[in-house]
């Protein structure tokens, strides 16, 4: 029976000590612990929130970067295209210029050749004339004894001319 009969002494001391324990723990343990836990949870939540924000910003930045990259690529392509056009144009121009120069050179060469040829012909003519005069001179200088000799001489001179 003692097992289930509450004793006044124990009830008194238990109420006193448990009440005191409740008071002390509430004031010096649970209040600070709860507030610290709350504070920490808040800071964790804020940190997570900030991380989210940072991630979003990062994403935006990345999108921006991609855009920039695309723009740069387009620009590069355009520049390359321009460059290619310019190059082709330059080549074309160079080729044209070269062609013209070539033609001009050929023309001038031909002209030079022609001039040379003309001068050579003139010189030849002069030479021939000189030779003819020389032949004539030699013929005249040779005493024209006979008709045969004259013929032989003429023949001989003519041959000489041919050799020349």
């Amino acid at each position: 029976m003692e097992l289930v009969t509450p004793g006044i002494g124990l009830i008194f001391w238990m109420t006193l000590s448990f009440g005191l324990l409740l008071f002390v723990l509430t004031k010096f343990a649970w209040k600070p612990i709860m507030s610290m836990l709350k504070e920490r949870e808040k800071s964790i939540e804020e940190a997570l929130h900030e991380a989210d924000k940072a991630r979003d910003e990062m994403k935006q930045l990345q999108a921006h970067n991609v855009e920039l990259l695309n723009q740069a690529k387009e620009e590069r392509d355009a520049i390359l295209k321009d460059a290619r056009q310019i190059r082709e144009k330059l080549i074309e121009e160079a080729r044209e210029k070269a062609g013209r120069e070539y033609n001009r050179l050929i023309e001038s060469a031909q002209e030079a050749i022609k001039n040379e040829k003309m001068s050579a012909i003139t010189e030849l003519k002069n030479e021939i004339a000189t030779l003819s005069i020389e032949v004539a001179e030699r013929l005249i200088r040779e005493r024209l004894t006979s008709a045969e000799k004259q013929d032989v001489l003429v023949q001989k001179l003519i041959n000489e001319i041919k050799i020349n």
Partner: protein
Amino acid sequence: MKRTLKQALSQLVPYRALLLAGIMISTVVQGEPALQQNHLSSEQEAFAAGEMIVDHVVDAHEWHIAVVGHTHITIPLPIILWHNGQLYSFSSSNFHHGNDAYRGFRLMSEGPYKGKVVNVINGSDGKEVINPILPLDFSITKNVLSVFMSSLLIAILFIIIAKNYKRTRGHAPKGIQSLFEPLIIFIRDDIAKASIGHHYERFTPYLLTIFFFIFLNNLLGLIPFFPGGANVTGNISVTAVLALFTFAITTISGNKAYWKHIFNAPGVPWWLKLPVPLMPIVELVGVFTKPFVLMVRLFANITAGHIIILGFMSLIFIFGNMNPFTGYGVSVVSVVFAIFMGLLECLVALIQAYVFTLLSAIYFGMATEEHHG
């Protein structure tokens, strides 16, 4: 008397405790006549299992540690009595384990006042007569001292933890703090917040205090020697005080909707309320049975566990009295079962602390719930 106790228990304690307590109390009941017969038949000190078990489970005025030969090693505790408008205080060692009277008081070791301090008057024929008016006993008994020690332990422990929190402000928990933080957060989130809801912050300190108080005392009760060993949470006075705290807090914080639900429950047909206020009576009784059940559940669960372990231990001596070798044989089985029960009790220590806290939280939740519409 014991029959009515048994019936009262079987109506109140939950299923598991009912089973165990029922079995054990009947053992106690059967144990006693056998013991008396032993006393009559043999001169030598017979082993009385029922008496031993009850002696170990109930409160005491001295802290018994061991018996060496015929000497009892005990820690004497202060006796504080209020009798006839006078305060008496002295050490319990003056009683010499109940053998001597001191300043007109005697610690009874048998009879109907067993374990109590009574006032003795010298009768007309020179023999001692017990004064039927018992002194009010405010002694620092084994359980009171144990409550003091465990309260101090809890206070120191959690004040240290609170200091740790201040030191590691905003950082991860460290050391002992990280051992208790999951429990604290569990009580706050899964007990207080889940059962009370909006107003949970007001009740968390109380819920945390009862949880750790019950849990620690349950565990200390499982330690068989000095710093532990007192059956604190298996004492009806202790559980009664805890239940009264829950009852008081529930009643004080009960809002309009709570009282309306008790006296004029919405959604109940009028004829259950008007000529005979049947529902209000049922609800009002419910207000008192809730803390009563809290008290009995904790008491019965913890006491039942202790009784079973002690029962297994008693088996060794009962069989040992028959034949020493049977005693040795049985001891193996008994120890194995006692270890099993000990482990089970560790689990029960946590579960009962949880259940008490959870039910308290649910009652607070009922008291503060807002009824819409």
